[in-house]
């Protein structure tokens, strides 16, 4: 009987219920889209920011930190003074992809600098992996290297190739200074050895790298006499925005309690990833490039805050609209409600009847809104980030909660007036 009453009541006030379903649907669709994007925005923004370079720098323990911290260019004299303690073995670099947060390591590239003389001018030649295919002991295979790490570089000519041991990528400024262009061949000297090289491409990084020359790592190792060694590694990792815990841990991991330490270690903070890299590469120090990490954190926090605010505002607007619609519905049905009271229906049972009716309508609106919201999220993902937004299971219970909350909050004023409604007033017009 209850269901019959509810369904018939819904059918009778069809227009009002359409509007309620529409209001809930609109609110839920926007909120679902916002939540969907919000859950995914961390990864999306991280990936966007990853295209602007590495956020971790691995250097040997013995190397001077000063140059790394302030990103100064090594001079040729400094490069000549390096010794064996200041290098990381190339064969250990695969371990970078074997830490707890291995899947968050997007790319990494090792570097080894060697001063060379080209056309009578001294310049730094940096050996690197352009695009190295690695087979890990776990069975996984990964491709990594500078090409992906510096994806924003504009290259004229051909990109770097690890197999072409005499092919160079020359920075725009260096090419201008040395009078080189793609396809040029020339002779260079390093540590008294002469070597024939050619320019595969000229790159424009828009930064200080334009003054450098990049070559396959094996060439730099051969010229410098540091076979199987690298002097630093740049790592690009997807990270979680820093918070108080991460900052404390970065300053001193020993200051954390056991539980805090576990939380920190198992969260992809840049400091915990750096810590894990140091664990796996004992001879290295890992420095977070704070500026990048903090920018990521700040951007993410702001975007997420904005989305939460938009979600809350959207739901509040829906609740207000529902409140008006339900109140109007109660007013319209005051005689019916008065009659039910006169027949002996308790306030609770009448409230249940009204809420059941409302929740059924809201549920329909919520389901439609959820589906539209998923579509909206995809639209936002594709338009803003150029990638789809995966459906997160957590959004479903959150959507249910939103429908429940919006409907309940929206119906509160109407329920209050329902409780106050006197049967005598509506039945006898007193």
């Amino acid at each position: 009987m209850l269901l019959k009453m509810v369904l018939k009541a819904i059918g009778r006030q069809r227009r009002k219920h359409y509007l309620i379903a529409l209001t809930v649907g609109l609110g839920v669709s926007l909120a679902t889209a916002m939540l969907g994007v919000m859950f995914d925005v961390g990864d999306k923004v991280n990936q966007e920011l990853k295209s602007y370079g590495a956020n971790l720098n691995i250097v040997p323990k013995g190397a001077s930190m000063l140059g790394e911290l302030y990103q100064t260019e090594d001079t040729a004299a400094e490069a000549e003074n390096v010794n064996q303690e200041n290098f990381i073995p190339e064969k250990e670099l695969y371990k970078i992809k074997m830490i707890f947060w291995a899947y968050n390591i997007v790319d990494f590239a090792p570097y080894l600098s060697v001063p060379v003389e080209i056309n009578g001018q001294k310049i730094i030649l940096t050996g690197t992996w352009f695009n190295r295919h690695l087979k890990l002991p776990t069975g996984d295979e990964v491709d990594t290297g500078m090409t992906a790490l510096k994806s924003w570089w504009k290259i004229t000519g051909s990109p770097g190739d690890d197999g072409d041991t005499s092919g160079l990528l020359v920075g725009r400024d260096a090419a201008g200074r040395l009078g080189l262009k793609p396809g040029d061949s020339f002779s260079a000297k390093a540590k008294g050895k002469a070597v024939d090289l050619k320019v595969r491409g000229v790159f424009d990084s828009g930064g200080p790298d334009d003054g450098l020359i990049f070559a396959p790592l094996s060439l730099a190792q051969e010229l410098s006499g540091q076979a199987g060694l690298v002097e630093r590694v740049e790592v690009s990792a997807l990270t979680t925005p820093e918070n108080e815990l991460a900052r404390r841990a970065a300053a001193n991991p020993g200051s954390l309690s056991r539980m805090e330490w576990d939380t920190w270690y198992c969260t992809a903070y840049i400091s915990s990833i750096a810590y894990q890299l140091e664990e796996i590469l004992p001879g290295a120090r890992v420095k977070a490039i704070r500026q990048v990490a903090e920018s990521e954190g700040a951007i993410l926090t702001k975007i997420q805050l904005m989305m939460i605010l938009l979600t809350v505002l959207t739901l509040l607007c829906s609740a207000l609209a529902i409140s008006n619609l339900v109140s109007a519905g109660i007013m319209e049905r005051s005689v019916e409600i008065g009659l039910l009271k006169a027949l002996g229906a308790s306030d609770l049972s009448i409230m249940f009847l009204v809420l059941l009716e409302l929740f059924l309508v809201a549920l329909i609106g919520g389901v439609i809104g959820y589906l539209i919201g998923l579509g909206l999220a995809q639209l936002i993902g594709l338009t803003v980030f150029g990638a789809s937004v995966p459906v997160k299971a957590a959004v479903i219970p959150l959507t249910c909660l939103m429908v429940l909350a919006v409907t309940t909050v929206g119906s509160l004023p109407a329920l209050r007036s329902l409780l106050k409604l006197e049967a005598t007033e509506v039945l006898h017009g007193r």
Partner: protein
Amino acid sequence: MSAILEIQNVSKIYGGVKALQNIQLLVPQGQWLAVMGPSGSGKTTLMNIIGCLDTPTSGRVIMDGLDLGSLSHSGLTAIRRESIGLIFQEFHLISYLTALENVMVAQYYHSLVDENEALEALAGVGLKERAKHLPRQLSGGEQQRVCIARALINHPKVILADEPTGNLDETNERLVMFILHRLHKQGSTIIMVTHAPDVAAHAERIIVLEHGRLASDRENNPVVSQPSEQKSADSRAEELNQNQKSEESFLAGTMAAV
């Protein structure tokens, strides 16, 4: 005969208006009482208080030995549900439910829904054939009879009828009064508010309210049908109970009988 209702010194004041003043009334079980009086005399206020839809400002109302003043809001709701059947001048049927469902609503809030019992109640007022009709598809008289069936479905101790014929034409008025007569004969206690003397004439006791006071209280010799009419009415009642006659013939027959 024991009293089903006892009203002791009941007054009701709305703001500064004294709607009822020191009303004393004893209603024996099975009595048909008519409450008369001009507009604003307090008839409906008295009905609301008896029907547990309102509470007196002072005084006591005792129904079937239970002091209504001692009951909470939910206690009064329970009395409305269990002991009182309400018949309204405006019928107050739920517009989107059929006649049958309107009767079943009262069942739902009372105990269990029984469609057959609800159909029987409709048959009792000659509307079995109209059970699936919506209120807008029924005439005023038919709507009032659905309202009566709804009031009776839970076997109330007291039937409160507020101007039950106020919105009906003469034919339907006679029909409704016929049904009330039958209920009275079956032992129901009926308290009926009316401003129409010919309607009140059917009751066995008539009280008159004026300015919230009990102006008169007298026994009445109810309108008695002629033997031939009585026979005819009885045979109509039997027909109703057996659900054999169509609504049209029921109406036509009753009209002829009255």
